[in-house]
């Protein structure tokens, strides 16, 4: 009986890291699949504005724009009405998609090497990669979370987090003019190509 309980507890202990491993493996698989899909589209796209258009339906499925926008705005988000929140998410996603697709030059494709994935908490996985692009090497970390399936919630390029960077910019706007200032700044950025 005692032996059985020891065996059981051992099995339990073994199961815990295993579930972590399988979740980070699932996240990594999801990321690889998504990145390949994006690169495939980038290959056939003639220019970056056409690329933004054709990438949108895919990026919506792999990036959580909702989480990104909330965190980029910060605690001020509570002061947004649900209409304003929707508007902010719409504008911010347009901006992110444009930023993302602007990073590709037609004809030049990145070469991505995946390194070990880590799991800072059960529902989060960070996959670090080395991306060779136009002769330069970049460390790119993808942060993923399980929100209705795996979703990318941040991209950290050479230590620069996309969400953190926008957060510091929105903070300034919010301090000056609250919700309206954030929304009008977003509109302005989206309308300037």
């Amino acid at each position, binding site marked *: 009986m005692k032996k059985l309980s020891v065996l059981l507890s051992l099995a339990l202990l073994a199961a815990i890291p295993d579930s972590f491993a399988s979740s980070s493996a699932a996240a990594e698989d999801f990321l690889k699949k998504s990145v390949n899909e994006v690169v495939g589209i980038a290959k056939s796209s003639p220019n970056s504005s056409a690329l933004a258009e054709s990438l949108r339906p895919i990026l919506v499925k792999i990036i959580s724009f909702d*989480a990104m926008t*909330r*965190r*980029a*705005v*910060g*605690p001020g*988000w*509570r002061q947004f009405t649900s209409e304003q929140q929707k508007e902010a998410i719409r504008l911010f996603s347009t*901006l*992110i998609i*444009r*930023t993302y697709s*602007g*990073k590709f030059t037609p004809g030049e494709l990145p070469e991505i090497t995946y390194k070990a994935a880590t799991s800072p908490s059960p*529902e989060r996985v960070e996959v670090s990669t*080395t991306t060779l692009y136009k*002769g*330069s*090497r970049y*460390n790119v970390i993808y942060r993923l*979370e399980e*929100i*209705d399936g795996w979703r990318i919630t941040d991209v950290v390029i*050479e*230590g*620069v*987090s996309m*969400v*953190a*960077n*926008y*957060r*510091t*910019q*929105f903070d*300034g*706007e919010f301090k000056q003019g609250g919700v309206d200032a954030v929304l009008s*700044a*977003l509109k302005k*950025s989206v309308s300037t190509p």
Partner: protein
Amino acid sequence: MKRLFFILSACAIAISTLEAATASDLSNNDIVIITKDGVEKVSARGRKLPKNSNGTVFLRSAVEPLPSPTPQKPSKPASKPTPKPQQRATPAPAAKPPKPTAKAAADTKEPTIRIQKKSTPAHADDDLDEYSNVATIADPAEPVNRGTFWLNHQLYNYVLRPFSKAYEFVLPSPARKAIHNVFENAEYPVRVVNHALQLEFKRADLETRKFVVNSVAGVGGILRVSDRIPELANIPPADTGQTFAKWGIGHGAYVVLPVLGPRSVRDTVGMAGDYALNPVSWLSYGGVTGATALAISGPSAARNMNSRMNLYDAATRDAIDPYIAVRTGYIQYREQAASK
């Protein structure tokens, strides 16, 4: 004497139970006050303790046996007034009505409820402030810096960008890559000296091997053969500013330099070190002047500018406030470089 000991030990048990109870489970704070006149039962939630009471305060669980399957301590009625420990019992939440003691045992599991709350981060509000601890830098000269930033912006857009485009136009990509490689290879002293100053001797050694491989097999550094050797492909970069950071020197203030763009005071000083270690800047000391010097340093400048333009564009194109975007980006990038 024996009696005093009995009272003291009863008090000690009562206090320890009280502490344990206040720490773990506040809902159990029903209190019993024993005075000369008799026994009074008080709920710690609803009411405050009577003032000027000479009575001794005990948790009810300490003096009464619980009717639950897990009885806590045997009841020990104390009979003499002792110094008052009642302040400990008062900081209980005041909202709930007093509960019957039968429920007390079930209540001890209350803290687990809080853990459940955390498990829905996706749409809960508690992740809003996740990026509150972004690396920042003091920017006391912000108005001046913003002015310089604006000037640089005009310079980049109207003077340097056409030049950079011309460079891209005149030289095909493989040629630009070759030029980049040659100068990167030539900057070997900057990296090796700083690796050594950071006591990273293994990296200094790898850097030296990379230099030899690229200079010999890569025809003077035109080809980066080292990329095909795994251990030489990804040596962390090193510069003087990073060395200062590893020595524990802080950034100091943020400055935007004309033409060169953002720096911290520390990295501005570091830049002087990099300049001194860069062979391209040794030309004039070696008697190389005029057209020859320009022929060598020209492509170097163009290549630097070209990569700087690309970086600047990437940082500012879709920014809300380009100045802040560059400042945060710069500081995060440098933090990472210093942590390698």
